[in-house]
């Protein structure tokens, strides 16, 4: 499946519009191949992809850290190169690496970020921001005395210090414990409620499943698919019917060959994989044929593939 089938819509209400974006690094490695992407205002978009897929490269180009080799990016309608002041004002970035000056105080480093974006001082706003991120009591601590999870939140505070409309979070929950991850999701949810558009990259599929509106899968510099989360799960999701037999069998009877069943090692369960989108799932026929073959059913159950299975299948197929 090619990205252009689904992602490049008309782009009318896209806050970020990426067209034909490509990047070849100096060492000749092509990290992005002709990416088209529309990010809708107010959505949470999760970008999934294995290590080295090009997620950080894509974000870095949009934010101005890396020069593109080709293609265009519009943020809020402003070209990210020609009108970089306008476009960057709209963007907040939380980088993948925990990059923070060592001795600076938390409140100072957040105020610095705000100033860099041309906004005048506003200590009350910054104090409130730190409190929202449970950093209220750390305002006057030097950043090198914070834990990794706190540093991550300081980076988020820095990214939000100038009240951006689009927030890029590059693996916001990498190395963050389960509880803090839930907190982080709550923060992201609140931001969305405020109308901030959020793009996050992650390796945790349950994260995408939990908070994203749309999911994009990127591999080897290409967007394999980008879709509403639910649609994606329905569309690409395979369902499985597991048939438990009263008596174990050694081989699958010839009558059942056309169903491509899988027999478990013990020989007492048969698994049938079918496509939910198909007009006929073949279940009725299968169950009939099972009986005709003289097998006795003990139990049947169905399961639907998770986003994780979808992801793994997509990336495998692409390789």
């Amino acid at each position, binding site marked *: 499946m090619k990205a252009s089938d689904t992602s490049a819509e008309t782009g009318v209400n896209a806050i970020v519009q990426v067209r034909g974006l490509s990047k070849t690094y100096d060492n000749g490695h092509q990290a992005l191949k002709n990416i088209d992407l529309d990010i809708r205002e107010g959505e949470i978009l999760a970008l999934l992809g294995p290590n080295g897929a090009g997620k950080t490269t894509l974000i870095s180009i949009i934010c101005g*850290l890396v020069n593109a080799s080709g293609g265009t990016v519009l943020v809020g309608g402003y070209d990210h190169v020609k009108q*970089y*002041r306008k476009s960057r004002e709209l963007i907040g970035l939380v980088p993948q690496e925990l*990059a923070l*000056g060592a001795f600076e105080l938390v409140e100072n480093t957040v105020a*610095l*970020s705000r100033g860099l*974006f041309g906004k005048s001082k506003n200590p009350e706003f910054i104090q409130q921001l730190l409190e929202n991120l449970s950093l209220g009591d750390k305002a006057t601590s030097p950043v090198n005395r914070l834990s990794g999870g706190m540093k991550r939140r300081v980076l988020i505070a*820095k990214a939000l210090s100038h009240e951006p409309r689009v927030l890029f979070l590059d693996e916001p929950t990498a190395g963050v414990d389960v509880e803090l991850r839930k907190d982080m999701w709550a923060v992201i949810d609140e931001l969305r409620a405020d109308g901030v558009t959020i793009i996050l990259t992650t390796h945790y599929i349950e994260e995408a499943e939990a908070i994203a509106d749309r999911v994009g899968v990127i591999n080897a510099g290409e967007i394999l698919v980008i879709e509403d989360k639910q649609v994606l799960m329905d569309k690409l999701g395979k369902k499985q019917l597991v048939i438990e037999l009263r008596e174990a069998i050694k081989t699958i009877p010839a009558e059942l060959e056309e169903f491509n069943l899988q027999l478990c090692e013990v020989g007492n369960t048969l698994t049938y994989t079918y496509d939910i989108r198909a007009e006929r799932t073949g279940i009725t026929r299968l169950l009939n044929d099972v009986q005709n073959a003289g097998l006795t059913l003990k139990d049947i159950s169905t399961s639907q593939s998770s986003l994780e299975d979808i992801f793994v299948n997509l990336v495998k197929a692409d390789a």
Partner: protein
Amino acid sequence: MNFEAIKVIYSAEMRRTRNTLLQSIASPVISTCLYFVVFGSAIGSRIESVGGVSYGAFIVPGLMMLSLLTQSISNASFGIFFPKFTGTVYEVLSAPISFFEVIVGYVGAAATKSLIIGVIILITASFFVDLRIAHPFWMLAFLLMTCVAFSLFGFIIGLWADNFEKLQLVPLLVITPLVFLGGTFYSIDMLPPLWQKISLLNPLLYLISGFRWSFYEVADVNVGLSLMMTAGFLIGCLIVVWLMFRSGYKLKQ
């Protein structure tokens, strides 16, 4: 113009100076005092005056230049190298700020710091020797131009360097020898004729000579030439920085 951004870069850099006040300010003062004790008093007492100026007073402009040059370069180069090294430079790159504004912030702070150090050395020196400044305006002009030019130069080095060794390379291997050989501690009249000619190839000689002229009206080379060399170096650095800016040199992949 994003003035707010210039302001915050400048003040963050000055804050860094305040946090490391001892090494930023005290170390040049101490080393200047040492130079005075060793060269001014111990050795200088055996040297007759140079061009009618006592040796102790003669070396003051040269000592100031020595500190200004090394401090400007190390402050400015470290100022931009460190964010590159720790990765915090992402913030400057993703902000709605031009390269020019970045330079004004970083180079402005480094130059300010050097200027402060220069003044402190001047005050320190006044305790040791009888100072007079014949042309305060030109003294200030040379001082400012030097601080800005070599802070720019340091910024260029900080951009270019991708490890700590390279960061030290130019100051250690190029600048320090050139300052020492550029007449910090002597007038080139004292050298054999061949070495006088060779010394004239040293650009820093012109700087030190011009600066000394603004104090005592004694100079190794014509002061107009000194002025031209200083301004030329400043313009050269500006051009290099501008070219770097156009290519996104080493900051952007």
